């Protein structure tokens, strides 16, 4: 399959993620959308890795290693992020980010 299909798919997934972050109000859903963005990038990395391997690059595997690093860092982020959301839920009994407006004044 040509790499263009993968680029389009990843960009569409990435944009869905961005729209979700900007439009949803629930912290958990926003968090899921961020993960969707990261996974769109993973898909793109793997597709590009195959593309450069077909083009004869010797170190095209680097992008696949990069994907593992993204997964590890995303897992670390999940650990911290869910802890923060739980902490907030304990204090406010809600995960709605509209509560954040209190800081404005």
């Amino acid at each position, binding site marked *: 399959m040509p790499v263009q299909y993968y680029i389009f798919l990843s960009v569409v997934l990435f944009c869905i993620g961005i729209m979700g972050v900007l439009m949803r109000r629930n912290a958990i859903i926003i968090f899921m959308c961020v993960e969707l*963005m990261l996974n769109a*990038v993973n898909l793109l990395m793997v597709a590009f890795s195959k*593309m450069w391997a077909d083009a004869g690059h010797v170190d095209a595997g680097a*992008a696949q290693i*990069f994907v593992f690093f993204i997964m590890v*860092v995303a897992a670390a*982020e999940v650990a911290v992020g869910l802890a923060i959301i739980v902490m907030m839920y304990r*204090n406010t009994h809600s995960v709605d*980010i509209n509560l954040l407006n209190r*800081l404005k004044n």
Partner: protein
Amino acid sequence: MNALLSTAISGVILMFVGLFAKNKQSIKYFAIAALIVAFAANFIDLRYVLKMGPYTAYASMIKVTLFTTLFNAVILGCTLVYFLLTGSGFEKVGDEVAEYFALQFFILSGIMLATSFNNLLILFLAIEIISIPQYILAGSDKYNLKSNEASLKYFLMGAFSTGILLMGIALIYGGCGSFDLYKLGLGGISMSPLTLSGVLLIVFSLSFKVSAAPFHFWTPDVYDGSPTVFTAFMATVVKAGGFIAFIRLFQIAFQGGIVNQQWTLVLEIITACTLIIGNITAVYQQSVKRMLAYSSIAQAGFMLFSLLAFNLRAQQGILLYAAAYSLATIGAFSVLLKLKDYTFDGFNGLARKQPLLAFAMTIFLFSLAGIPLTGGFFAKYFVLTAAVQQGGMFWLVIVAIICAAISVYYYFKVIIAMYFKTGEPEVETPSGAYKAALILTVALVILLGIFPNLLLQFMK
């Protein structure tokens, strides 16, 4: 490289120290000792680089240059001053003092990576190692709603900008076929649309991390909501670390040829927005803590000049700026920590009650405003002359000078409150050790303002 290892290992050891330490004071002394060890390790790196020249390590994933080691020295020195001035404030935030120190050492190791990365993978890891501990530090005051909200907001915005950074890296890889900064080959005469969109996404995401306008909207809320001790760290050392990642990437990989024209104009607009929005909004603030948050945005505007100019002077400028700005802001926050009321009125009559605190605060604010004989003056002078030498952005230099004049207004509001208004400020009596550290910081700020060459003589 030694500095990187020593900060990372110290972070791990500090978490265990928390288990065995009898009292909170000993943890602080241990952290200071670990920092001195890191400083010595960095000094070994510096001597090696001076003798043998730049070297690469870990399969050329990182490259240590003279600038790397000097910047590390500035970062570690500022952190040492930070620990001396505010180390006792950690206990007031919560019980997990050892963990707070450990997280700050992890941030430091991230900054050591950011000063030496040679590969986009390490750039990503460095930015994440700097960011993730900060989300925790921002929310460390667990039962305070403002701290919770600061933490959540910082986390969501930070994770979002990380996603954008990664997309930029992936697109650049698609266009260039490598992650190595020296093999990207962006300096040519043509570039693919994939690479161009990747470069722009990276510009946006890193502007986000250094809180440059129009990507600054999270900064005041996060800095205001976080515990003041940790705001002092985030607004200074960490911000300098973000800048060094930005500068290294752009000066090595994104320079020359067609790529330069693509992002220079975008970055000039970002710089102008940062200067204008940061300074004008700071004028309207009621709370000194929030004013310092906006002032950190405004100062980021000046630091962005060193990105736009590709000469030695710009490198000297960012080195001096990071040192002068960090020292002055850490000092100002440490004085703020001693006060109960963070509004401007809370400072009324401080000069009569605590003359030393008021004097130190005055020197720090002078330095932030860029008054001669303090470090801030030469810092601003160097970055602006670097931009003039580069040419082509004279309008931006004029904007910067007007904004520096505006900044004098809100910095002097605090000084006027301290010296010319009467009031009974609620202020904690400073300890002897704190006073000594404060005098040391004031001396450093003035020393940088009179002999900037003490720091810059190594950069030839």
